[in-house]
């Protein structure tokens, strides 16, 4: 059986031939400029080479940071990178425990990471999200902050309030008032931005080459004032165009890549079936220790914890309720049976008991 499968694989590989490197190449070119892996890294990862692990951790780290609008530097420690990637993958719904078990110094697991990378390509649509995030800005956008970044629960107040050190309510009213006034100032600023944007559009209407738009965007209007910055703009647009072309190429060659990934999965299944039995009791949740790199993920984990606690408590309550009801019914049934026995009417007690038992169930 095994032998024939291997034969089939080799046949498929021969058929894939030149298409796979082209697909991987397109994929790499479609990624943002600062996060492009060498195609070789993916090939090495397929064979689980340890040398590729560090590169792959870094790749995933940078890509996920971009998705979540985080900041990173070249010198971020490998431990922090590993931790962030694990949390971010968990947040997006990737639950493979083998990934969470990878060592924190990033020296192994390149094949696992390849798997995770491919999953990201498919499930949250990594490439599409990155392309959308990195578009050249026209300046005409307005943003609505929908983030739910509330403060962590254990926030220290300006004065550590113990029972003796009460905070005067007038001070709290003062702070609340300041907040409101600052909000009013922000509101005025937003209105000003809208008004000025409208002015730009109004004054440049009819000047744009594209008749549908009809007016300049902020970036274009700025170009008129600072013509020397057109070079930078052209570079950015070029880079974006190349990425988009690579993306289209990738989309055409995508099936080849997924076939290749199937072989990776098969390899892992063969090897993994031996270790799987040891992990029969997979823990419900396997996460690295909490740190501040992913507050949004930690918050989600906290909410899920609370939810599961609440559900457990609810289950407890329901059990108790059911037990009480059952006890009450039995009492009633026993009382009824006694009354029937003491009465003169000859009734079949067994039959009654059975009927009561049936209704109660």
């Amino acid at each position: 059986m095994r032998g024939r499968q291997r034969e089939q694989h080799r046949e498929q590989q021969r058929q894939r031939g030149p298409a796979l490197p082209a697909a991987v190449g397109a994929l790499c070119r479609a990624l943002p400029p600062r996060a492009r892996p060498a195609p070789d890294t993916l090939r090495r990862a397929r064979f689980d080479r340890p040398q590729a692990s560090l590169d792959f951790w870094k790749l995933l780290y940078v890509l996920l940071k971009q998705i979540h609008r985080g900041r990173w530097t070249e010198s971020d420690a490998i431990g922090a990178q590993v931790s962030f990637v694990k949390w971010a993958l968990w947040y997006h719904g990737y639950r493979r425990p083998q990934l969470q078990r990878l060592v924190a110094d990033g020296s192994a697991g390149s094949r696992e990471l390849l798997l995770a990378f491919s999953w990201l390509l498919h499930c949250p649509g990594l490439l599409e999200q990155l392309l959308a995030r990195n578009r050249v800005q026209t300046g005409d956008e307005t943003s609505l902050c929908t983030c739910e970044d509330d403060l962590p629960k254990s926030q220290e107040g300006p004065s550590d309030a113990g029972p003796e050190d009460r905070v005067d309510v007038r001070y709290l009213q003062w702070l609340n008032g300041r907040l409101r006034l600052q909000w009013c100032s922000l509101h005025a600023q937003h209105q000003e931005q809208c008004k000025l944007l409208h002015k730009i559009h109004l004054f440049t209407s009819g000047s744009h080459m594209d008749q549908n738009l009809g007016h300049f965007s902020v970036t274009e209007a700025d170009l008129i004032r600072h013509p020397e910055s057109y070079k930078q703009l052209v570079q950015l647009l070029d880079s974006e165009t190349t990425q988009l072309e690579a993306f289209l190429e990738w989309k055409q060659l995508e099936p080849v890549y997924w076939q290749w990934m199937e072989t990776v999965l098969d390899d892992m299944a063969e090897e993994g079936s031996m270790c799987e039995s040891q992990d029969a009791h997979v823990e419900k949740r396997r996460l690295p220790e909490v740190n501040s790199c992913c507050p949004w993920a930690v918050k989600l984990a906290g909410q899920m914890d609370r939810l599961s606690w609440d559900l457990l408590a609810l289950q407890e309550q329901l059990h108790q309720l059911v037990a009480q009801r059952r006890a009450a019914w039995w009492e009633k049934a026993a009382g009824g049976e006694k009354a029937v026995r003491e009465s003169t009417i000859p009734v079949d007690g067994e039959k009654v008991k059975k009927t009561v038992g049936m209704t109660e169930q």
Partner: protein
Amino acid sequence: MSIVTVQLGQCGNQIGHEVFSALCSDIRGTHGLCSKNENQSYQDSCKERFFCEEESAVPVARAVLVDMEPKVISQALSMAASSGHWRYSSHSHFCQKQGSGNNWANGYCVHGPRHKEAIMNLVQKEAERCDRLGGFFTIMSMAGGTGSGLGAFVTQCLRDAFPTSFILNHVIWPYGTGEVIVQNYNSVLTLSHLYHSSDALLVHENDVIHKICAQLMNIKQISFRDVNQVIAHQLGSVFQPTHPAGGGSGYSRNPLGDLMETLVPHPEFRMLGLRNIPQMPESSLPYSTFSWPGLLKHLRQMLIANAQMEEGIDWQVRPPQPGSSIPSTNKPLHFNTSIANLLILRGKDVHSVDVGSFQDPSLYTSWLNPQDAFNAWKTPRAFNKYEKSAALVSNSQFLLKPLDSIVGKAWNMFASKAYLHQYTKFGIQEEDFLDCFTTLEQVISSYTNL
């Protein structure tokens, strides 16, 4: 960030005109004592705030003039135009053909609603002309008849139409021995209504300004024009461009917002007093020298002792001793407790000034520490020919006694139901009066318990 000024009634229009004149002459002057670039920024910033540049070279004031009779408005319009340096827009005023009796209730209940649409249209047009509306500044007297009633109504309309804008009401406190017999009623009604609609009330007392004119400015025959010019000078020293408190290179783009945030976040404490130093006749300026430590020392004592000008300060008044928790009843008499203070310094060597004496915690109420309560804005560009000048806008017990006195007198009149028919006739009932008294008693009690 532009401020729309709403001049209400005779008093408001006369003062408003003087304010714009003072601002204009300040920015055109060559007394800046600073670099050309700095001067240019200052001019541009002031012009953006208060004036609108139009095709004609003369800047147009961002103002709406409202009065029941045409006389004062047309005077203001013509005086501005004849100055040649600025003018009012010809479409931004509202007045009626004849006056309408000196009656607060008439102004609030009858004329206000009747002319609301016309007046708010003017305001809306002025507001739309601003790229950024930085807030409204209304000028009116507190104790007048129709002007005050109408002014209170207009402020309410402003609040309804612009719920998130800053509204600063400048009110003129009447002379203690004023001629209008119902001025205390009018004052109580105006103050309580304004307290609900506006963000802050900046008060100038007629008695105080009169004394400044007499003693400091050496004016023999004090006219309303002299009083108004002193008021305009004091307001200008607050509203001209300043650098924001956190440093930063440009002038503040949010003057009213910054002012409100430092002084009136708390909804119960909205009354602001203004002290300015030095104040002297223009002819004496070349012969005087000023030092920052001296100016600040006087200003601080003016704050503590509730003095109204730099002469006749009671130097005996001292802040309470720190370290012991002093209930307010034991505080030294006549000591003026502050909630928040804003110090605005303009002129030469302003960055080296030490304002530590104003950050003394004993000056402030116990529930606010000096980091929150005190702010200083420093600007090297001198104002209005004064080489060094300091203004103090203070949210403190300055107005506690005058307020208490007015409310007391009004209550006595109310208790004997004197002159109430003038108000009930137009729709202000006794319950409304009682509500107003309650509001003001609450304010008095809040300020007393600092």
